[in-house]
């Protein structure tokens, strides 16, 4: 049964749409590419429903270009060693956030490599890459190298990950082509055992794989004896996973919001992978996500995924263990290993989910589980509010059928509160819907509008939604309206992780509340994802992930941009604020000033500060660029002579490439004080002269009368003087 041949696949499976996209919003090219390269029977997401409630499951993945598209003229070199050949794509290794190409090691051309060129702006798992690089991990493709490369088809510099190339190709392709077979006797040694080894290795470094699915399994050797897991680092965790490989909690989350999860999520995905690989098709292919969720909640994941398919009896126990919907009861890696080693376990009894005695009809569909109802509610918040306002049966359904008076009271309170605070953001249907959905499904994702995210996914969800999917407003509203609070409030337990996740949301809300440069959604992006490259349009041809790389990148950019463009925009300022350990609040305040002089000096000061702190040596291009923008700062001096002196000195300092020196010239304290004092004196002199002129030129007669009095005084003094001279002369002549 486990032998899979191409002709054994049901015809409808081979033609079903990949990813479950009946009408992909991102265009046919992307969808077609997925169709071309991804065998539908394995990698398709759950089929879509013809109703509006399908979009969470069917979030289309924006891709930079069609999968497998060759770029014959494009060749990139990484670290002067690895040559990535754009003319030789490897479409079967593409992911939703990266394209695969053949790579060659200059130092060892016999080594066959594959390069995954990531979509520009896609958040990669840098922490995991650092730990996996050059480490041979059983059950995983080895990461050889990773770095940014110039890749024009991606729109500039982008991240590229070099893996060793799996020589046997993709497992599902080999099986479909009859080149390999995995029998029920092989499945443990060939599939489960190496994958559990990989999951265990990753578990030791607290990093789950989150991309375990049949389409991401490869034969490492040409003989097709060793199966390894493919890439998991080129995008957000579980971003490329079809929803069926996700647990009940995470499957209704949007792809970018599925979260990091744990190795327990990998175990679950492994269980689904084993079933689908053995069966050769997806048993739930004809069900929508909502239907599959309802079945999972009703009968459990194992029964929902297997359906009526025949599973070898020896695998029933481990698969039930791996697909246990109660996470604490799910098999761990040790338990799977123990089973592989032949130690028997007591068969697990499935824990039932809360279930109503009678169904509640919403959107023309019956719902017996509050968790499934929460999912249905989240698909149409406005209809949910209308229903809850008008339908008295809902309250009685919760109280009687679910037997949960507390839940009914809390929902009633939320509705009444929304009624009282009508018109406020808190009473918005989306927010109210989110609160009620969290109450109905506390373990599910945070649901807002038509987006859903697990709280541990914030660091990857932000860049994915803001940059790749242009959903800036949605994610901003989710945080600004404190939608996350309702999720944290309904949790029965509050482990330390929850506190960290909550702190991250609160931090983001604080940044969003500040409109000034250096804050806002851009700051959230860089604070939450320390590995994210700066997304400034100014740096579109650069890949900057650390502060030390920023100034050299700007230096290179200086010759490629319009000299009128300022080197610091909102993205770069937020990037600096997130990556710089020093206090730059005064700089940010100056940069947000409406006064251009202050903005210019703030820009120069900040760049100079960074150059000094990061010990970056000569920056000729950037200094020249900044030097050309300093006129407003030079104009902050009053003295024309000082201005001319500064203008004369700038070219000389530009040739030194030192921003601190340039800053010293522009904002010299002594020079500034002298200028201020001189200007004050000049103002006083000017005022005194003006007063005197006004006095002289006044036409009120005062000046004339003053002059007349002066004339009279002079005349009288003259008369006295004349009389004294005459009398003296007379006396002298009389005496002598």
């Amino acid at each position, binding site marked *: 049964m486990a032998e899979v041949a191409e002709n054994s696949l049901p015809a409808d499976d081979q033609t079903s749409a990949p990813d479950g996209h009946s009408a992909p919003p991102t265009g046919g090219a992307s969808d077609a590419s997925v169709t071309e390269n991804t065998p539908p029977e394995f990698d398709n997401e759950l089929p879509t429903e013809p109703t509006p409630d399908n979009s969470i499951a069917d979030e289309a993945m924006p891709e930079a270009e069609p999968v497998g598209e060759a770029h014959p003229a494009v060749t990139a070199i990484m670290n002067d060693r690895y040559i990535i050949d754009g003319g030789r794509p490897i479409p079967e290794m593409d992911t939703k956030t990266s394209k695969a190409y053949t790579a060659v090691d200059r130092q060892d051309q016999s080594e066959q490599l594959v390069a995954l060129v990531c979509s520009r702006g896609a958040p990669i798992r840098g922490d995991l890459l650092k730990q996996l690089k050059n480490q041979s991990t059983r059950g995983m493709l080895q990461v050889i190298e990773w770095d940014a490369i110039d890749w024009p088809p991606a729109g500039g510099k982008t991240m590229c990950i070099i893996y060793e190339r799996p020589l046997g190709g993709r497992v599902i392709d080999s099986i479909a082509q009859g080149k390999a077979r995995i029998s029920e006797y092989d499945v443990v040694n060939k599939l489960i055992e190496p994958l559990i080894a990989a999951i265990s290795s990753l578990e030791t470094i607290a990093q789950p794989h989150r991309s375990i699915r049949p389409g991401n399994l490869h034969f490492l050797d040409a003989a097709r004896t060793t199966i390894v897991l493919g890439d998991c680092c080129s995008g957000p965790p579980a971003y490329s996973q079809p929803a069926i490989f996700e647990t009940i909690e995470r499957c209704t989350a949007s792809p970018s919001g599925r979260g990091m999860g744990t190795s327990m999520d990998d175990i679950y995905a492994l269980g689904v992978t084993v079933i689908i690989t053995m069966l050769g098709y997806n048993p739930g292919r004809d069900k929508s996500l909502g239907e599959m969720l309802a079945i999972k909640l009703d009968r459990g994941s194992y029964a929902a995924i297997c359906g009526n398919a025949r599973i070898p009896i020896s695998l029933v126990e481990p698969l039930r263990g791996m697909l246990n919907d109660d996470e604490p009861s799910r098999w761990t890696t040790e338990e799977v290993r123990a089973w592989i080693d032949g130690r028997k376990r007591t068969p697990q009894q499935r824990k039932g989910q809360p279930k109503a005695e009678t169904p509640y009809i919403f959107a023309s569909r019956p719902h017996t589980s509050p968790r499934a109802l929460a999912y249905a509610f989240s698909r149409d918040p406005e209809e949910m509010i209308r229903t809850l306002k008008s339908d008295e049966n809902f309250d009685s359904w919760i109280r009687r059928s679910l037997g949960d008076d507390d839940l009914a009271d809390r929902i009633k309170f939320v509705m009444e509160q929304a009624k009282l605070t009508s018109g406020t953001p808190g009473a918005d249907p989306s927010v109210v819907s989110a609160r009620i959905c969290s109450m109905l499904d506390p373990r599910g994702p945070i649901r807002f509008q038509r987006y859903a995210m697990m709280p541990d996914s914030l660091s990857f969800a932000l860049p994915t939604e803001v940059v790749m999917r242009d959903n800036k407003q949605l994610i901003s509203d989710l945080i600004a309206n404190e939608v996350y609070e309702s999720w944290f409030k309904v949790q029965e337990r509050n482990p330390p992780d929850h506190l960290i996740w909550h702190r991250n949301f609160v931090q983001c809300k604080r940044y969003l509340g500040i409109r000034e440069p250096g804050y806002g959604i851009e700051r959230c992006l860089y604070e939450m994802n320390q590995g994210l490259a700066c997304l400034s349009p100014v740096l579109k041809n650069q890949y900057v992930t650390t502060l030390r790389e920023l100034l050299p990148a700007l230096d290179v950019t200086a010759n490629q941009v319009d000299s009128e463009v300022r080197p610091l925009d909102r993205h770069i300022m937020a990037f600096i604020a997130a990556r710089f350990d020093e206090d730059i609040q*005064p700089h940010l305040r*100056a940069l947000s*000033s409406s*006064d251009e*002089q*202050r903005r210019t*000096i*703030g820009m120069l*000061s900040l760049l*100079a*500060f960074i150059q*000094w*702190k990061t010990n970056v040596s000569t920056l000729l291009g950037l200094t020249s660029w900044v030097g050309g923008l300093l006129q407003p700062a030079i104009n*902050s*001096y*009053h*003295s*024309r002579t000082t201005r001319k002196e500064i203008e004369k000195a700038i070219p000389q300092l530009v040739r*030194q490439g*030192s921003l*601190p*020196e340039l*800053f*010293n010239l522009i*904002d010299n*304290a002594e020079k*500034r004080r002298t200028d*201020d004092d*001189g*200007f*004050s004196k*000049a*103002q006083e002199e*000017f*005022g005194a*002269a*003006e007063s*005197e*002129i006004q006095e*002289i*030129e006044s036409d009120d007669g005062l000046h004339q009368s003053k*002059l*007349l*009095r*002066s*004339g*009279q*005084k*002079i*005349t009288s003094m*003259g*008369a*006295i003087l*004349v*009389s*004294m001279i*005459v*009398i003296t002369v*007379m006396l002298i002549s*009389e005496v002598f």
Partner: protein
Amino acid sequence: MARSSKARSFIVIWVSIGVVGLLILALPTVFVGFFGMAPTFVAFIVDRTREKYATFCVAGINACGVFPYLLDLWTGSHSINQAVNIMTDPFSLIVMYSAAAFGWLMFITVPPVITSVLGVMAQKKVSALRTQQRKLIEEWGESVARPPSNPQTRSATGRPANDPGRVEMRDIGSEKPAVPEPDDDAA
């Protein structure tokens, strides 16, 4: 108040003693002086200004006309007859009073001329001040013509120190002083 009135009384007493003494010792001189300087006394009464420039002007020239006759009196017979002879001589009266008239004429005609000269000098000064202002504007810009808002503590950007939005340039580069000099780098 009482002290000033007492002082004034003393002055009056001493002036009276002086006048009486002068009348006893030099009556002819007093006689010629009193009648010869009569225009000056008139000028003193007519001149209502505080400075009494007209009085000084008339008195100076009037004295020039009276003094020769006083000299004759002092060098000749210092008698009341001689004094009466002088004062009854029309020529001597014409000399004395013409001198006083000349003093008045001077006071009327000379000040306007002096005023005109001073006016020309003032215009020259205005021109010099304008030139000085132009030079200040050339060096410091048009803003130098504005009165200083707070001359002691203006920032480089012209914001007063008490402006809450003001950021000192020193604040912006608060860490800047530690920027290594090129020599330090070389070291």
